[in-house]
Each structure stands twice: as structure tokens, then as C-alpha cells.
């Protein structure tokens, strides 16, 4: 099997949850690492999960699948998922996939921490 490359994800605590800020291109070689790190954070039962995508210039469908999984697992726990600071290519892939209206997308971290 292809080796999975680990994604650097910075995290920041919020009063009611956590912000994750992955950096780099999220493709099939990197999405498994991102998926694992999101699953890890979900174990802490956050009420709010913010994914700051400002450091992600590119994402393919495996990255999008990771975001959809995050959406499903937050919904299951009654938590809230917010995506913020999308770069143009990431916004484009969500639009083409008709997911731009399914996710709650806000401008930046400040908006995501307080709505």
C-alpha cells in the first residue's frame, strides 16, 4: 500500500470546542492522516469543531470525504462543525460537489468561534 504522509495540523482550544488548522495539499496521500487527527479530536467530545482551511491551497475528493465524515460525526454528537478561511480551489471543489450549502462556511476564525 502507498505510504500515507502525515498532515501538519495546528490546534487551538475554544471555550466550547477546538479549532483545527491543517496545512498543505490534502490529497489521497494525506487525507488518511487528517481523518485520523479529526477522529482523535472528536473523542474529546467538543461542542464546536472549527476547521480553518486557510493553509490548504488544494484538496481533492478524498479531502472532501474527510470533511463530510467530520460533518457526520459532529452531527451524531449534537456538535457543530464550521469551516472557515477557504482558499479559492477548496471553495471551488465544494461548489462543484454541491457541498457549499451543506457545510456551514464562514469567513474566518473569529466568525467561526463566536456565531
Amino acid at each position: 500500500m502507498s505510504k500515507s504522509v502525515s498532515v501538519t495540523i495546528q490546534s487551538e482550544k475554544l471555550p466550547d470546542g477546538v479549532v483545527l488548522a491543517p496545512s498543505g495539499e490534502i490529497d489521497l496521500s494525506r487525507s488518511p492522516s487528517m481523518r485520523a487527527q479529526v477522529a482523535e479530536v472528536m473523542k474529546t467530545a467538543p461542542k464546536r469543531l472549527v476547521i480553518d482551511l486557510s493553509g490548504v491551497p488544494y484538496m481533492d475528493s478524498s479531502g472532501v470525504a474527510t470533511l463530510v465524515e467530520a460533518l457526520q460525526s459532529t452531527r451524531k454528537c449534537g456538535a457543530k462543525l464550521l469551516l472557515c478561511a477557504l482558499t479559492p480551489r477548496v471553495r471551488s471543489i465544494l461548489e462543484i460537489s454541491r457541498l457549499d450549502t451543506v457545510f456551514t462556511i464562514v469567513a474566518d476564525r473569529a466568525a467561526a468561534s463566536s456565531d
Partner: protein
Amino acid sequence: MSHSPDLSIQMLSRTSLLAPVRCMLVSFAERIGFDETASGHIALAVDEALANVIRHGYSGRDDCRVWLHFWELHEPAGLRIVVEDYARQVDPELIRGRDLSDIRPGGLGVHLIRSTMDSVRFEKRREGGMRLTLEKLLGAAPVQSAA
């Protein structure tokens, strides 16, 4: 395919090679005249095609081969990309995107390929494996959300 490709790649079926191929392709497409958005879409389509060959065609094995061929097209201007493998053959009819209104992880790749490229053709190769032929013309209609 009357003339030989401008550039061809032979690669192992490794996901770590997706990024180098995308980078090459963005640069190739920009030189042809595609803008940043269109070049990004072309790279996305090929990335999804390769990911499918690796995951579905070769079941995730990383020691198999994939071939890519790139042509700049003239009159009308654009590019053609061919992806070939020796992987499991599937009926082209069965390679299709799922209903997007059913929100679940996965099942977006073929949709992305079809909505970003002007022409998409899957076929079984006589010598074994599959061939995917993609074309995109300069100045064609902009990408729409998949229906």
C-alpha cells in the same frame, strides 16, 4: 491520436506521486493559456483519475504502473490527457458518479472529472487495463456544479 504526445509520464501507483504530477500539469496547462482556475480544475480531474486507478483499479497496490500522455491541442486550442493502466477492467458504463443529494463521504471523483473537463471517455484497452481520455478546450463554458 495522430501525433506523439508533447510529454508522457510513466509512474508507479503511489499516492505520493500525485502532487508532482499535479504540479507539472498546472504548469503545462498555464503555458497553453488556461487561467489559474481552469489549470487547477485540470489538475483536479487527473488527480481524481489517478486516485481511482490506484484505489479501484490496482486495489491500493503501490508497485503497479500508470501511464499519462499530454498533448497541446491546436484549432481549437486546448489539451488532451490520456491515462492508461493494466488494472482490473470495468465496464465503462459502471464508472459513474453517484447522486450528489445523498450526502456521504466518497463517490465524488467521477463527478469532479466530468464537471471540470469538456470530454471524458473511459474504455477497456485491448491489451488489458483501462484508458481514460480527457479533453479541455480553452475558452469553453465555465465549470458548473455537478447536476
